């Protein structure tokens, strides 16, 4: 059977508000699978043109796949959402790039003509599932020096990155973090973020029901001064602080993907076209550099250069990791093409969910900026990886070729 490679489109994306992990967080007593269910149902409500039975597969990412993030959450969340039982599902894990991998894993069969429509998602309830819960690293990692002992602690890998690039100072990292908070605050003030959010009922045994409608982590008014004095928990007199890194968060994201012809057939929106994607490995102890090789690889596959990219959504696990990426490609720390709505340092980074947040942000910016043709979403990944997806803007009007 002859196959023709089809275009894959990002039809729509949404997310829960992100919460602070821990007992006082808005989602402290909310289940991770319920977070996913809320986003799935919202996406289906927003895209009534999509008959649910046309969804060929559901992939949901979670880093810790146990308890409310276990039970093959792609399938269980589909059932809990009321999707037809005929719709299958599976789980994905690539740590921070989980949701990104849900998207890429589902895109490939769409391109090949095996799937028409798919539902991708990611969730991490870091309050219920703290990073590293239940891990059992093989002793060979250390015995054979396969990885540096610091490779498993993300904060330490960020400090290592500062070591590698001495000119990327704590001051630059803090300045980047302040800007991220400012951009997020501005995006909120301009009503850019709210439409992407799905309100989630929260319940605590103590306080009863509430409703989460906005992100909990942002700290408006963050300044260089307020960041200067923060502790450096990963190294005495280090550079990485809670202020220039993403926090520990709870949240879920999801997106609808569809083949171009199927989107046309059903009348679905086509908000972004997937151009290429790539994942790449780096030394685990400097995992934050991962987006550099993954982006080069994705650009190369797409036949594009970094100059073709008009918008960047870079996950902000750590400011230093974004700076290292920008530095490599010769982009200024405050380049307006980068994270225009701010990033994870402000809104949070519920590990396996963040990839689709980046895509949803990019899709919105594509609509605002029809002069931009290409954009990319990229993120660093634990154990030394990076992931990049390059997207084309269907709204591109050709007025300004990047």
């Amino acid at each position: 059977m002859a196959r023709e490679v089809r275009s894959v489109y990002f039809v729509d994306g949404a997310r829960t508000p992100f919460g602070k992990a821990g007992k006082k967080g808005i989602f402290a007593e909310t289940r991770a699978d319920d977070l996913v269910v809320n986003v799935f149902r919202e996406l289906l409500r927003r895209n009534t043109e999509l008959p649910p039975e046309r969804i060929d597969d559901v992939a949901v990412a979670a880093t810790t796949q146990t308890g409310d993030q276990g039970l093959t959450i792609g399938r269980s969340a589909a059932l809990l959402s009321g999707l037809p039982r005929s719709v299958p599902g599976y789980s994905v894990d690539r740590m921070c790039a989980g949701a990104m991998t849900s998207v890429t894993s589902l895109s490939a069969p769409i391109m090949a003509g095996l799937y028409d429509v798919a539902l991708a998602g990611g969730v991490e309830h870091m309050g219920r599932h703290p990073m590293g819960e239940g891990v059992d690293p093989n002793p060979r990692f250390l015995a054979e020096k396969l990885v540096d002992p610091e490779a498993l602690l993300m904060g330490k890998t960020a400090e290592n990155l500062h070591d590698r690039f001495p000119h990327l100072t704590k001051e630059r990292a803090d300045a980047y973090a302040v800007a991220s908070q400012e951009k997020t605050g501005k995006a909120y003030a301009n009503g850019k973020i709210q439409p992407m959010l799905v309100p989630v009922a929260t319940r605590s045994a103590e306080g009863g029901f509430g409703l989460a409608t906005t992100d909990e982590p942002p700290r408006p008014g963050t300044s260089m001064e307020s960041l200067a004095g923060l502790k450096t928990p990963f190294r005495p007199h280090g550079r990485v602080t809670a202020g220039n890194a993403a926090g520990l968060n709870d949240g879920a994201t999801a997106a609808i993907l569809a083949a171009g012809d199927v989107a046309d057939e059903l009348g679905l929106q086509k908000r972004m076209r997937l151009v290429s994607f790539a994942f790449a490995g780096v030394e685990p102890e400097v995992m934050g550099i991962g987006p550099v090789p993954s982006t080069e690889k994705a650009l190369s596959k797409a036949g594009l250069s970094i100059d073709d990219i008009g918008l960047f959504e870079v996950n902000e696990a750590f400011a230093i990791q974004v700076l290292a990426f920008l530095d490599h490609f010769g982009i200024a720390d405050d380049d307006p093409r980068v994270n225009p709505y701010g990033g994870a340092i402000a809104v949070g980074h519920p590990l396996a969910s963040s990839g689709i947040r980046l895509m949803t942000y990019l899709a919105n910016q594509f609509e605002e900026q029809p002069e931009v043709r290409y954009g990319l979403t990229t993120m660093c990944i634990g154990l030394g990886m990076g992931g990049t997806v390059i997207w084309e803007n269907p709204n591109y009007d050709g007025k300004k070729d990047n």
Partner: protein
Amino acid sequence: MTETDQTISHEIPQTFADLAIDESLLGDEVVTHAKLQFIDLPSGAGRAGLITLDNGFDHTKPNTFGPLGLISLNNALDAAEAEDIVALAITGKPFIFAVGADLSGVPKITDPAQADSIAQMGHRVLGRLGSFKVPTFALVNGAAMGGGLETALQCNFRTLSSGAAAIALPECFLGLVPGWGGTYLLPNLIGAEKAIDVIINNPLAQNRMLKPKQVMDLGIADIMYEPADFIERSLQWVADVISGKVAVERPDVDRGDAWQSAVDRTRAELDARLHGAAPAPVRALDLIELARTADQATAFAAEDKALVDLIMSDELRAGLYSFDLVQKRAKRPVGVPDKSLARPVNKVGVVGAGLMASQLCMLFVQRLEVPVVMTDLDQERVDKGVAYVHGEIDKLQAKGRINADKANRFKALVTGTTDKAGFADADFVIEAVFEDLKIKKQVFAEVEAVVSDTCILATNTSSLSVTDMAADLKHPERVVGFHFFNPVAVMPLLEIVRAEETDDASLATAFAVGKSLRKSCVLVKDAPAFVVNRLLTRFLGEVTKSVDEGTPFEVADRALDPLGLPMSPFVLLQLVGPAVAFHVSETMNDAFPDRFYVSDNMRRGVAAGITGIWAFDEAGNRSVDPKVLESFDQGDAPLTPEQVRDRAQDALAEEVQLMLDEGVVADVRDIDMCMILGAGWGFHLGGIAPYLDRAGVSERVNGKRFLEPGVASDPR
């Protein structure tokens, strides 16, 4: 952000200072706390208060309102009122909205002023939801009954979860009225006719509950959402209503003749059915009638009055006693050996393939989901029995109660044979053959020859001695009585009979099986006709005797009307069948010739093939069946209705006391439970003993009451 209310003190706020709320009312209340949070509504619709009702337990202990719970809600309303909000919403804990007033303190109420305080507190607190400074919304996320549903009705708007387990105003079932606004608000929301269904007819139909779709169809809730994101969708709807994006439209209520005619029609039905025996439904109807014209204050005051009168009534106290029997005692039968002694039952045998046997087979298949073998004398009967069960399985499937796989599974479990060897590996064999001791003994002997030494042998006899049936077996210790009521699938009662030799393990197994069959099991001694049939037979004998002596049929049959029984004596006779009833009366007369009457008239009637006393014409009018008139030779000493009733009641009181003296059951509560669940005698009677006590019959006949004053009666 979060305001909690965990530490409710027993201090009564000033608002309620005029009410008679004392420590005795506050006693052991499981307090449902009203937890208030302030939230930002979606779509920027503004700030709202959100109250969650939560008693701190999971859904198996639902939210209820006692005085402290109402105070908690009142405090939350105060706190919400003080804030700048655009809406107030109220919801429940997961799966439960609220299931009404906490009635656990009611039996302790000795003073009408205390009853009045409960009525008034409900109105004062819940009433605030109807006249709050901003629109109020009930988010009915789960079961909502009684005061819980009234809480929702007091709100200006209601959303409903399609997963809500049960919605009802069950007060009339117990002997109360929905008097925290229900009798006024509901008819004014959905009209008198529908409100009567919810407030009166459903409670009187085995306390029927509404499903969410019915609630929507009735117009009680404004919009329904699926449970997955019910709170989220509801709050979006709240936002849309507040912002004017959604306009809520409700059909106009017919306040004209339809209202009054619904009331009049129901009044006639209630009178025909209860003859004034149970005051609550009539009282509820009065209030619904009033609700057409009265203003809210007048209507609520009338509700207060009704609640006080009913809370202080013997009928309600008997109703609460009855409720406790069927909810608690029925689930934890008294005097039963420890369940750890029970042996597993993985295969069942049914001797006989007639109608009763086939019904039993169906029940065992459906509830135990183990193989069931039916046997009968010839293949034709066996085939008929199996076909009956298959037909019942098909009916379940057609109703959507089971799917095709389950139907296949059930059908595969049913087999029939003419050879009792089919029982070889059964753990439980029940016989449902002709009511004759010799035949039953022979059946058991044949079964014993093939089954293991521990296989339970159960008999569905209604009047024979189980001990006699076991007498000649090698292992009489495994024989139990298992007396079902007809129709087996519907009637909740199972009298489990311990014969003289029955051992603990067999009895424990029988109770475990009964529980799996989802029956309310009562342990009874091996005494003639056990409990229900003994009392009904004695009672029917007295009525028949009065006819034989010359009392007109009509007078005799109506004499017991003031009790509000589910059917009159001769209608019951018709249902049982005169032949069966007569046969039982003879058996009982053999056992207790002094007390159990055998009517020669009835003997002739049965011989002539009568099917009942009454014949009905096409319009449903009844007259004495001519065949009865031919058979009956009445005396010339007619009794007055009062005399018939006295005789029947006296006989019941005497028989109940004798049963207790004989140790037929452990406690008079078991007799009452049997009469409620096996004969359908009303909650207002408390089964029978509370009625006999309050009518002075027990005292007159036995020189003492069955129950202490206050247990199932107004203690004053």
